[in-house]
């Protein structure tokens, strides 16, 4: 996984709540068997509208997405995270995330940043007033900085450490393989097996 320490970039204001993963990437784009090449599917239906914010050249090259609450609800498709990464995003700021999306993002080096609604609204206003405003997402300090403003965001120590180090979960778990084997020896033998 890519490391995430401190990222500074411009930001896109997405003034919508309940941005579900079907909006982030519609199911027709999920037929591919690769992990890359999903940028063309990102917000595909909304991008058909010339007024959609991602079509605004002022926000081209932005790497931080600022959205309303319940971002990434719905389907478990990790393709939503891959599509955001492929487009160039490194962080999404929202008051609340869907659980599965949040977990997926943490696995793929896309930082889900939870800020309260007033902070999100302040950021929306700021980046609409000045699309070139630099927004810094600092995982070391667990804070977002933009202009003169600083907002702290929560993230558990373990997830933060994994991202800072760019660690892969499977390798971490395999360090405890003996414990897994010991657990398997204790499992009731009547539990179902399909082979």
């Amino acid at each position, binding site marked *: 996984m890519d490391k995430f320490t401190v990222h500074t970039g411009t930001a896109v204001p997405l*003034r*919508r*709540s*309940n941005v*579900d993963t*079907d*909006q982030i990437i*519609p*199911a*027709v784009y*999920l*037929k*591919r*068997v*690769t*992990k890359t090449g999903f940028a063309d599917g990102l917000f595909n*239906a909304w991008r058909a509208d010339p007024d959609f914010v991602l079509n605004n050249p002022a926000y081209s090259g932005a790497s931080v997405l600022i959205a*309303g*609450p*319940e971002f990434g*609800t*719905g*389907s*478990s*498709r*990790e*393709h939503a*995270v891959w599509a955001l990464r492929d487009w160039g995003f490194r962080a999404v700021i929202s008051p*609340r995330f*869907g*659980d*599965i999306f949040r*977990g*997926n993002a943490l*696995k*793929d080096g896309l930082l889900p940043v939870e800020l309260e*609604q007033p902070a999100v609204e302040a950021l929306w206003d700021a980046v609409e007033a000045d699309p070139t405003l630099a927004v810094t997402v600092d995982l070391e300090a667990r804070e977002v900085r933009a202009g003169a403003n600083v907002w702290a965001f929560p993230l*558990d*120590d*373990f997830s933060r450490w994994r991202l800072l180090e760019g660690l892969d*979960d*499977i390798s*971490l*778990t*395999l360090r*405890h*393989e003996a*414990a*897994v084997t010991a*657990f*398997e020896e204790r*499992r*009731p*033998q*009547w*539990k*179902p*097996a*399909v*082979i």
Partner: protein
Amino acid sequence: MLGEAPRTLSEKVWDAHVVRSAEGEPDLLYIDLHLLHEVTSPQAFDGLRMAGRQVRRPDLTLATEDHNTPTDNLITIADPISRTQIETLRKNCAEFGVRLHSLGHAQQGIVHVIGPQLGVTQPGMTIVCGDSHTATHGAFGSIAFGIGTSEVEHVLATQTLPQHKPKTMAVNVTGELPAGVTAKDLILALIAKLGTGGGRGHIVEYRGPAIEKLSMEGRMTISNMSIEWGAKAGLIAPDETTFAYLKGREYAPKGDDWDRAVEYWRSLRTDEGATFDTEVTIDASSITPFVTWGTNPGQGVPLDAVVPDPESFEADVERTAARKALEYMDLKPGTALRDIGVDVVFLGSCTNGRIEDLRAAAEVLRGRKVADGVRMMVVPGSAAVRAAAEEEGLHEVFTAAGAEWRFAGCSMCLGMNPDTLKPGQRSASTSNRNFEGRQGRGGRTHLVSPPVAAATAITGRLAAPADLS
């Protein structure tokens, strides 16, 4: 060892699966059953190959084909990209020794329908799948939740998953559901009450007399939609209904093992005096047939109501969401739900594609006709559900009414296979999501129960069976 403190059902199941626990780290949970399908697994198998890893427990892994499969035949997958994805699953399962129920197999079907029907979904298990509706299996008293593809790879490689322990929530459903009101109406009403983020960070236990009275099919409908209000998982305590459903199924324990298993399953009920981090109560007796008007499952009202005025919502963010939803749905505030005409009725999905759902709809359709200009698709949740329905003659009821009797799959629930709405078409759908474009780009979805779906097909407008003379 754990002390004598009273525990909830989900705490007992969680504790029984902790492989390793360390301060400041997520618990490492053992996974009893890993279900796979073609959409969210190919990149996980690629990951295994790149790292030179094997599937640790093929015997605890079961794959099926459901999302991309056609429902008009069992042989030809016309879309070459869909076909490649299915073929990739077949190759992966052959290479890694995973059991696969392919298109045409007697036990093929939607992943969340086949687990329970095989009896491989049992109480007290941990069950995961790269699909958010994995919560369905919680109806048996298992911790079941959807995962992403990175986690699919993790489970394939290790049969475990690191997980932070969620908070616990009790949903107390008091009273009894009135006649003609289904589990689907109950869960839609609950989501409308609590919102799409209401369950976030919690494992939920649905409890109370109205839940205990539900069949396993009804319970699965409830647990299935846990994710739609943000819950990690939604459990229902195993009881005699659960045991009766499981007994004799292919993978259910047999003989002495059955007795041992039932004894253990009985011990899983939430202890007297156990506390939940959060409790909510909903009165089942006040619920009437419920439908959605908007573009998230929380935007629902009783069928008797009218389309709400966005300005009536308190929070700015909800007002904006309602305005956008009505624009997308092409609806005006104040319109009676019963005045909304539909083009398509979809009966099926992991929410309402089981035999009891088909029976409920057939009962309404028997001797009646689908309205002119309305297309009704009946898509069994699995090949076995299809066979059972044909055994009972339900298919004849559907076809005599003018509905399409199709093969098993996810079908029009998600707009990934040939079964989709055309832009501007409106559906009454027994599925689980009314998101923009969910059933096909530009399609407009109203979520409903199977009896409401059937009555709507007959009148051509959103309707309940009681509206039919």
